[in-house]
């Protein structure tokens, strides 16, 4: 699972109001190279939750993203490369996504998070 997918997922347990962002527990991560698409990145920048991406990439062991970012930084190739790497090239393979409010863990196996709820959570 890429961090772009992580960036749009929230804890969906009934009653949880602050389910975003899910904390990441990493047992295994992989990197897969993909071509950089500048227009795509510029477009995504307006949509991603920056803080969540920064925290997520740090828990994956990548700490190159600045704490704060604004759209003027998109003119820098170096910034774009880092943003691209964090958003699309880091994959969580094994581990868990943790609900920030309840601590409930959603397991991630073979890169696939299991967000199914138990009966009493729906």
């Amino acid at each position, binding site marked *: *699972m*890429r961090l*772009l*997918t992580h*960036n*749009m*997922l*929230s*804890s*969906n347990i009934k009653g949880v109001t602050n*389910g*975003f962002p899910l904390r990441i527990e990493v047992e295994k991560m992989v990197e*897969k190279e*993909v071509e950089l*698409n500048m*227009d*795509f990145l510029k477009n*995504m920048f307006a*949509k*991603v*939750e920056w803080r969540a991406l920064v925290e997520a990439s740090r828990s994956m062991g990548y700490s190159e993203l600045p704490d704060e970012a604004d759209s003027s930084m998109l003119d820098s190739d170096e910034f774009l490369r880092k943003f691209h790497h964090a958003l*699309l090239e880091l994959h969580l393979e094994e581990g868990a996504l943790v609900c920030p409010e309840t601590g409930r863990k959603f397991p991630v196996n*073979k*890169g*696939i*998070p*299991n*967000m*199914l*709820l138990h009966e009493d959570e*729906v």
Partner: protein
Amino acid sequence: MKLKQLEGILGSLQQFENPKIELEQYPTGPHIASRLLYTAENSFGDVSDKVVADFGCGCGTLGLAAGLLGAEHVIGFDIDAESIEIASSNAEELEIDMDFVQCDIRNLRLSDRTIDTVVMNPPFGTRKKGADMDFLSVALKVASQAVYSLHKTTTRDHIKRTALREYNASSAEVLCELRFDVPQLYKFHKKKEVDVAVDLWRFVPKNSR
């Protein structure tokens, strides 16, 4: 990529091994899947360089077709782990990077409008009434650009009305009518397959870009 070529590749994908009838697991055939994605890309520009979600992805045909047509990021959502496993090996076979999330679409919480386009062949609601409407309602909440979906032609008026009045669609348009082979849905049917008339829809959410 040519339409025929796309259809050919989709025809080579692995399909459900032990379809679960209660989840309405039947493949979206290569003919329909290729036309859905081809239209989305070539008539509307809703696929290449976009974030595309495949709701009820099953073995992944629709999402993978989006990947083949140049989607930047594709996510398949399904409730069933076995199907996702097949979809994931299909993705590997085609060397397409696709993410998957196992979840029940009905209680999925996604941030609004990060996804550009949703493509789906929802359960038609033959086993669980209203299943297709649940999918449509969530799809129109999360898509920023368009939702492509298949629904039984007999429900056309209902779909249009509900999408426009209740689900925040600014337009709901039938692009074409297709025939769909639905296997063994009805126990009382003697035939192995029933041929159902299905509409290919394009919905545009309000506040789309």
